[in-house]
């Protein structure tokens, strides 16, 4: 979606330039004279009226989408925080258009935009259980947006969230991987819940996973046969994370939100983006995952 919009913007800019050039190529003498007599003030006036003066505001704003109140979240099994991507796609006069991607859900929004205060109030369509209203202010000098989101349904586990997001560029890069600092030996854990008291977790060793990359190398049986279930899961889901997949699965979402700083959720379906190498590795890893799930603690091999 983002790419298409960028492409459209690029085409419009490019075509505008072409038309201007055409005028430049075919001037009559009068126009030349006019141009020569134009003062610098007139030129700067022309630049101000270019419709894309807001383009520096467009882009992905990424960060934590945090509950405003901690009451009831645990009881209703909500998530305290998720990584959100608020994409500002288009600003036209006093309207702002965009979409948000969070927790495996991508929703469009549109609404009013105040050019002076840079405050936007935008609404989601309202046909999804989790739709609501975003209110935020853009801070172009800091490349940030800050604001709140209020759900249409106040009975949700989390009816209000706040956010302070940084502008980020997204680009698929097969080389991105789980970062591991060799001097510091540690294990990471996978949780199904953000509650501390819920003690169930799987431990994974980042030093092993960070040596493998399922997007850039063809994995062998020897590479993956000694990994435990959680490690296989992370190795495979790193592929989706590189493509900007927004995880519905809580265990994966909590892990990528907290442990991977380069991770930006941009899409809820990345299947078409996967390379043939990645598909091959996914198939291999899945075999071992299923085997681990079914047979690891079972009387058998």
């Amino acid at each position, binding site marked *: 979606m983002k790419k298409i919009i960028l492409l459209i913007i690029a085409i419009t800019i490019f075509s505008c330039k072409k038309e201007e050039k055409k005028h430049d190529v075919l001037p009559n003498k009068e126009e030349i004279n006019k141009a020569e007599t134009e003062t610098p003030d007139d030129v700067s006036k022309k630049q101000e009226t270019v419709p894309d003066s807001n383009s520096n505001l467009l882009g992905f704003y990424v960060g934590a989408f945090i509950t405003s109140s901690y009451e009831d979240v645990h009881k209703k099994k909500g998530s305290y925080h998720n990584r959100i991507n608020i994409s500002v796609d288009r600003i036209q006069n006093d309207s702002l258009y965009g979409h948000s991607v969070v927790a495996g859900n991508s929703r469009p929004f549109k609404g009013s935009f105040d050019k002076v205060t840079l405050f936007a109030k935008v609404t989601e369509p309202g046909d999804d259980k989790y739709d609501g209203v975003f209110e935020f202010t853009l801070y172009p000098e800091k490349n940030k947006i800050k604001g709140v989101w209020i759900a249409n349904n106040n009975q949700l586990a989390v009816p209000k969230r706040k956010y302070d997001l940084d502008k980020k560029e997204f680009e698929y890069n097969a080389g991105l991987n789980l970062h591991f600092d060799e001097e510091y030996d540690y294990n990471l854990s996978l949780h199904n819940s953000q509650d501390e008291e819920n003690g169930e977790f799987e431990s994974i060793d980042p030093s092993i996973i960070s040596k493998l990359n399922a997007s850039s190398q063809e994995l062998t*049986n*020897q590479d993956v*046969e*000694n*990994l*435990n279930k959680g490690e296989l899961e992370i190795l495979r889901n790193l592929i989706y994370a590189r493509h900007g997949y927004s995880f519905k699965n809580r265990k994966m979402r909590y892990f990528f939100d907290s442990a991977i700083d380069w991770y930006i959720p941009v899409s809820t379906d990345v299947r078409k983006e996967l390379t043939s190498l990645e598909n091959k590795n996914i198939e291999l890893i899945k*075999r*071992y995952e*299923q*085997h*681990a799930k*079914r*047979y*690891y*603690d*079972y*009387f*058998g*091999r």
Partner: protein
Amino acid sequence: MFQITIQYFPIDFDVAFLRIKQQYTHLTHYKIAFYIHVTFSVFSLFAGFTQFSKKIRTQFSKVHKVIGWIYLLSVLLFAAPSGLILGYYANGGFWSQLAFCILAIGWFWFSLQAVRALRQRNYTKHQFFMIRSFALTLSAITLRLWKYLIVLIFQPRPMDVYQIVAWLGWALNLIVAEIIIIKYLKK
């Protein structure tokens, strides 16, 4: 054990254990060896359970003979040679490959010695080698039991546990077999 075998029938090369052996399942000899092994190992395992009963041996010697030959032929002609092929392609690298190959050769050797003892009419020798042979047959059960217990207690990595049980599964059985033989000799 019967259930473990039955999951591979009707013949399907993409189930259970074979799901993580896909790098070998295109090999015809691997596929044949695998199916021979899972089929005839079950014969030998069940045949073995009746053979140590003194009552059957003395009062129903014909039963002992028939089941005994089923056991010996299953092992010598089918289960042990196919086991050697599978051992060569075992998971877990060199050390578990070595463990499974020794297991297969030992199984064959002990069973063969038991047959030879019959030819020599040396029934004590036959008994001793059958105890050893069946100790290795039972590794089918003990290997899986050790795996279950080790995972339950230590939760190691999958191939680490596999390498451990590849040895533990039969070596301890053999030690127990020798203890039984020594005790028998003292009588």
